[in-house]
């Protein structure tokens, strides 16, 4: 009889060990399985009919994953580990960092690609654009962190910090106490009234709190944009942090969300993750489709609504120009402000000749160059100025950025 118990316990131990291994496989595949989740998984298995594959599958899935995107990886791991089916290696290699609904990542990434691939974008009037792009690229090259002079490095750090600090603000619905507030703080007023025999003589106030406005970056990483994209991602890294409400996307032929990678301070990985899922680098940029993907999948989730959207691209559209125009209009309707940063715009005598750029411009509130450090400073300045008007006015004298305040 005690032998039976032992047997039972041994079976339990074995199951726990198996679960632990399974958890490790999931972790290696990029699913964040906290240790105590294994306990939950074990308890969950006890709550279901273990002879049913489906019930076991769901019991493990609901305890070990907490993100829809991990479903695919989980399926592959489940099949491989518990059913000994040949795993889909590509899936297990790394959890897809994409938004829901994107096709699984293609592992054959164009890792060794080079900005020169941009040459294949050669249209007739592409030549002149190319020429301009190249000189700008060369200039930005010197911005590579390794090649910064001491002074530039210092300047860029300050800039990164400024960018991160001066996110546009808006007034929240949440109230905080403030002596210059505009609503009575009933709780604290009444409490104070106790001291004055119940007469609320001293009135205390609350006002709406300031919170960062949503900020969404869309960065073109197609061949010709690559050096700028790298620099932009570096800057973004400082801005993306918990509570900052910053979202970052990259696009070439497809939109990829990279907020998580950036939050983990892995800008290179973010770039790699983004490029991994772009099947055809040489295919050029489909800005319209990327903006459409953003509108379709993120608008109703509120990512773009009331947000400041910053598009970083040379506007070199390979897809339909009408689509880009329609989708930019839609984006503009949902967003608070649309800023377009174009590295080529820094060129003397630049005109938005690229058809895509011309189509997008009517739906852009601020059009800025983005080819060097100074232009990024300008971007930070624009973002700063986008706070709610009243806030901007409140802030202007203190910060001294506005000429009015002088």
């Amino acid at each position, binding site marked *: 009889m005690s032998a039976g118990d032992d047997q039972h316990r041994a079976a339990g131990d074995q199951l726990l060990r198996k679960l632990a291994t399974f958890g490790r496989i999931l972790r290696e595949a990029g699913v964040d399985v906290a240790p105590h989740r294994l306990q939950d998984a074990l308890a969950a298995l006890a709550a279901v009919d273990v002879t049913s594959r489906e019930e076991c599958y769901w019991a493990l*899935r609901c*305890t070990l994953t907490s993100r829809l995107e991990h479903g695919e990886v989980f399926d592959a791991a489940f099949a491989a580990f518990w059913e000994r089916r040949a795993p889909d290696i590509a899936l297990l290699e790394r959890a897809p960092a994409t938004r829901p609904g994107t096709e699984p990542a293609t592992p054959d990434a164009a890792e060794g690609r080079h900005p020169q691939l941009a040459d294949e974008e050669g249209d007739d009037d592409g030549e002149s654009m190319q020429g301009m792009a190249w000189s700008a690229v060369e200039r930005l090259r010197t911005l590579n962190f390794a090649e910064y002079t001491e002074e530039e490095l210092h300047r860029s750090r300050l800039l990164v910090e400024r960018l991160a600090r001066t996110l546009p603000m808006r007034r929240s619905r949440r109230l905080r106490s403030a002596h210059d507030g505009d609503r009575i703080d009933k709780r604290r007023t009444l409490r104070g009234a106790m001291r004055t025999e*119940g007469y609320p003589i001293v009135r205390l106030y609350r006002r709406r709190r300031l919170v960062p406005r949503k900020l969404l970056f869309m960065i073109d990483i197609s061949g010709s944009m690559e050096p700028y994209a790298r620099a932009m991602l570096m800057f973004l890294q400082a801005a993306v942090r918990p509570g900052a409400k910053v979202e970052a996307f990259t696009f070439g032929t497809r939109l990829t969300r990279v907020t998580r990678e950036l939050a983990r301070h892995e800008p290179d990985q973010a770039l790699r993750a983004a490029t991994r899922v772009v099947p055809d680098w040489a295919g050029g940029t489909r800005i319209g489709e990327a903006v459409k993907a953003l509108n379709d999948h993120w608008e109703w989730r509120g990512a773009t609504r009331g947000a400041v959207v910053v598009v970083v691209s040379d506007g070199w559209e390979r897809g339909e120009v009408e689509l880009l125009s329609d989708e930019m209009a839609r984006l503009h309707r949902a967003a608070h402000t649309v800023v377009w940063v174009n590295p080529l715009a820094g060129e003397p005598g630049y005109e938005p000749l690229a058809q895509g750029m011309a189509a997008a411009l009517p739906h852009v509130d601020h059009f800025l160059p983005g080819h060097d450090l100074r232009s990024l400073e300008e971007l930070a300045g624009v973002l700063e100025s986008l706070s709610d008007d009243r806030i901007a006015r409140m802030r202007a004298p203190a910060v001294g950025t506005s000429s009015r305040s002088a």
Partner: protein
Amino acid sequence: MTGAPAAGPGPAQLSVEDVTTQLREQAYLADRGLATVIAVSLSLGKPLLLEGEAGVGKTECAKVLAKALDTRLIRLQCYEGIDVAHALYDWNYARQMLYIRTLEAADAAAPDAVDDVFGRAFLVRRPLLDAIDRDDPTAPVLLIDEIDRADDEFEAFLLELLSDFQVTIPEIGTLQARRRPIVVLTSNRTRDLHDALKRRCIYHWIGYPELARELEIVRARVPDAPERLAAEAAAFVAGLRGTDLSKAPGIAETLDWVQALLSLGEHELDEALVDATLGTVLKYHEDIERIRGRGLGDLVAHSRREAAALASRT
């Protein structure tokens, strides 16, 4: 879970089978996945986090669960700016003022008047306090709806509450849940929830059902609808989901639509009817235009074929 209150382990252990049947009795058809996840959540006494597109029945799931378990549903709808005074408790200030005035008039300023003023009689109970401080015979279902709309601070506060189900009101003391409520959180994923909160929950993503199941849902929810109408409408909506839309219609839209068509006294779909009622299904002007541009006649014909194929299979 350590140092858990004297609360019972929740309702008696339910098998997946039981959950499915009991929900079905309330006209809610849960698939095997959802039923399993609910059973696990009940058994482990952990909050259930349901995510999914709008209109797939996340909120409904909690409501129906309360009915099936024959217990009270307490609902907290989250929104931007929600805080403790909205979610947990507040003081009835007007009443407090009145009480103080009365005391004064009666010239009866007793030393413990202050205690009175901050006593339970002046407490406004909000949903979370209601879920904790209550003497129900069964544990209530606490639905925390659209948690993604609340801000980070509120999420952190909730995290604390969900871990030990006790709250401290400085003026009154610490209140501890006698029965741990069954917690269901829903999220539309307008933003990522904190990992710490997710880790505390049993997680499930509710997707769109297959056509056959959706038809079953329509039958259960709109029992008066003619079979053919229900099947064609369900097939039409399923077809829409496959296309390129800003906002794909959920099950809620299918049900609304069938209800609308029923009230018009229709028995089958036709192009003119769809054209007139498309706004029940699609809520974006661009989507409606896009689908119209694709030719409603073809789509109707296609959904008829689908419905017929489904009927012949069963």
